[in-house]
């Protein structure tokens, strides 16, 4: 699915490089459910952003589905992740001005999918997540768990092969969190590759593999 080779990321602070990630080597196979763990500031989110092509590495090579991402231009990269990757955030990041329905529909609009097809796809996923009744509500009218459900639905609408989740249950109570993790497990069983960043051992256990990060390095 993807392969990171000698990936490093640093910022210059006062003329000296401060490393966020250092020489990361990692490969993830299709169908895996990987949990990345580590204390705050260990570089989990940055690693996830690099996998999701939202951020560039300072050094190293990144292959996504056999394509050398580090050599691609911005436009090609954006095209690549638009088609294959979905994101779920801790803070949901729904657009407040749009309804549930419109939020879910948005990625499809950016992929130039026809209106009739969009309708069918959104209706499908609303049904699957049991939130048909909420489709005309605005995000602020939903509970945290419901918002995250919408966030996941939005991430999955374009049928990505890879789902990247940054502490998806961080803002939720334990019962809501469990439901979300169950959902992830089910998705993984359906063939979606998942990489999640989490603080919780319990949530990490849902995955098939755990990677521990400390100070920008993978702990073996």
């Amino acid at each position, binding site marked *: 699915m993807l392969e990171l080779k000698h990936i490093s990321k640093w910022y210059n602070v006062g003329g000296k490089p401060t490393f966020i990630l250092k020489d990361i080597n990692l490969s993830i196979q299709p169908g895996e459910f990987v949990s990345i763990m580590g204390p705050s500031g260990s570089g989990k*989110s940055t690693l996830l*952003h690099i996998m*999701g092509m*939202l*951020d560039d590495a300072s050094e190293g090579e990144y292959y996504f589905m056999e394509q050398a991402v580090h050599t691609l231009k911005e436009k090609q990269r*954006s095209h690549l*992740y*638009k088609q294959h990757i979905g*994101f779920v*955030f*801790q*803070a949901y*990041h*729904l*657009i*407040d*001005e749009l309804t549930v329905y419109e939020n879910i529909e*948005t*990625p499809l609009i*950016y*992929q130039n999918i026809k209106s009739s097809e969009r309708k069918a796809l959104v209706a499908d996923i609303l049904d699957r997540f049991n939130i048909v009744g909420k489709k005309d509500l605005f995000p602020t009218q939903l509970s945290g768990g419901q918002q995250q459900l919408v966030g996941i639905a*939005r991430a999955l609408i374009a049928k990505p092969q890879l789902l990247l989740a940054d502490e998806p249950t961080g803002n939720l109570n334990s019962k809501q969190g469990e439901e979300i993790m169950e959902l992830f497990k089910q998705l993984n069983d359906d063939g979606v590759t998942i990489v999640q960043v989490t603080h919780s051992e319990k949530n990490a256990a849902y995955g098939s593999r755990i990677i521990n990060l400390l100070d920008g390095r993978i702990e073996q």
Partner: protein
Amino acid sequence: MIQNFLKVAWRNLIKNRTFSIINITGLAAGLACFILIALYVIDELSYDRFNEKADRIFRINADIRFGGADLKLATTSDPMGPTLKKDYPQVEEFVRFYTASGSKQVKKGDQYIVEADVMHADSTLFNVFTLPALHGDTRTALNEPNTVVITASTAKKYFATTDAVGKIIEADGTPYKVTAVIRDIPRNSHFKADFIFSMDNVHYDWGSYLSHNLQTYLLLKPGTDWKEFQKNFRQFIDKYVVAQARQFMDISNLDEFERAGNKLEYSLMPLTDIHLHSDRLSEMGVNGNIQYVYVFSAVALIVLLIACVNFMNLSTARSANRAREVGIRKVLGTARDSLIKQFLVESIVTSFIASIIAVGIAILLLPYFNSLANKDLTVGGLLDMRILPFLVLLPVIVGVMAGSYPALYLSSFKPIAVLKGKLSTGAKKSTVRNALVVFQFATCIFLVIGTIVVYNQLRYIQSKKLGFNKDQVLIIDDVGELGNNAAAFKNEILKLSGVSSGTLSPFLPVPSWRNDNTMSREPVLDPKSGMNMQTWTVDADYAQTLGLELVQGRFFSKDFPTDSAAVVINETTAAWVGSGNVIGKKIYNFESQDNTPIPLTIIGVVKNFHYESLKQQIGPLMMRLGKVTGMASFKVNTSNIQSLVKEVEKKWTAMAPGRPFRYRFMDESFNNMYNNEQRVGKIAFTFAVLAIIIACLGLFGLATYMAEQRTKEIGIRKVLGASVQGIVQLLSIDFLKLVAISFVFAAPAAWYFMKRWLQDFAYRINISWWVFAVAGVLAIVIALVTVSYQAIKAALANPVQSLRTE
């Protein structure tokens, strides 16, 4: 408390530098424009009010129509003033001005100076108008012939002292004794005069009720209802005017005259209305126009409002930043009205800083504004006691105006919502804010359309086929000074190379002499067959020099001695004489001593040419062959005009030693007729640019804030796959919608007002659709450029930054 307010206000200004600069710049520009226009309007409204009896002084206007031509005169007949005073006890005093003899040549040493601001006046002048004397006694100053009253600066110019009483001035060859020196007539008087000569020296055919050549002012007794008094004029007409007309005309009373479609009407015009409301023939000078006062005032208010709108929009848009402060203050127990006061103090501080800058800008721009408005306003005008208090109050008024909506809005936040961070940000759509932006852009579009229409009409005037050729015609004034040598002078000039033809006539299709006369189609003069028309005396070379085109017959020629009893008419007159060929037909005038008709044979018809401004329809005109030598015009054909003018001057000096040489070019003279319109064009253009700049400043600020507020949304959208182009579109489209709505409001309003402005012109353009298209596209492009900088910046930002921590 107030100290705390001021401290917080100051810190906020410093902290949000960009917004403070946008706010202050916008407000300062608006205020500067407001101050300048206030000066202008106050000056315009002050005309003639320096006269102590201003509310009792009235001018008699005459409205005459005889045979189709409408005459609106600022003058009336010479016996009217004395007769009214004799017959009606309500009339306390009258005074008449005589200016028809034009400028005078006044001798200074052995030189002659052409003085344009001269008039003859009755000795009662000083009983009516307030013109205080420095030396001499104005009560008796003009009682005798050969007396003159001069102003202080004229006295200094000729005698190097203001005490010139008893000195002799020679004007047009006649010696006058200076009997009084008055203070300079205030600039805001509707008449200007450096010399006031005795009425007794006017060579005039006194006593005719039918010639209207004198400006006449009445001073009514206190308590007289002037509107009521005007009703006496009909009785006056029947008793005196009709009685005199009966001597040579078949008429019994005014009613009969009116039934034939004619008109003779006198009316009173209050002195203080003259400057702004009167545009008649024989005005004492160029008057102002109340419409321009309205337009200027409206523009000043609008520009100030646009600047205030910027302030409101930016303040409310930035509300989220202040929300925390509001919440904390409320939790600490601050009442709402105290918060309102705090925000008002902030806006007043802002507008106070802006006002100081505005006064500076106004002082700097005053010379430019003076040339724009054709005024001599001074900075000192700002210190006028009527303006100064207002100027001090202005920042407070503007501060409250601009600050009250933001103050009410900001102070209404609920503290709990704010502190829990649940408050929706200022980026939320605000109807009020959108309405304000629409107002700004509607105004800008309106001004742009106005500017385009004014300039189109001016261009139309420049390029319109006038029926004569105004290019490369050199006009020499005062040729009458040469007396019988005028023809010799013309021949001398014709010998110069580069001069192709020349004509001696003071009647030209640019401002020059005018002479109207009553003609008849029949050998008798009655109300039905009479027609009042321009009667010009020209020489045989007139048509060739001015490029007039003949449609029937021929022009005057030296080869036909009988041409002295012939006339050439224009098409308007021809249509009145009869249809088809009018050559050989006769028209009659009644200028002879015994009122017997004199027949004149029509030998030619010239194509209608615009001998008055394009504001007027082309009226009836006839030309006669004769020698009236007031001006000479030459068609020149040379690339080196300046050296030709020098040669002409040399000939002039040889033939008229000591007499000033005055010349002008016909196309210049023509353009000067439209100075007012050119001014309107410049004003509309200047303020359109100003309004657009201020509005864009506001839009830029708003866009900056919107982009800032929507950072998170933009980040999400980018992660979901939105392109840069898509984001820019997203951010710009809302503003463009507003501009489009503005257009919907502005276009019909502009169409209506500009249509009305064009009504002033008898010959005018149509407002075509492309004017609106240009204004609309321009507004959209300007808005787009303003907004897109921020939009592109926001769209290019890395979403990871904006989504990092929540």
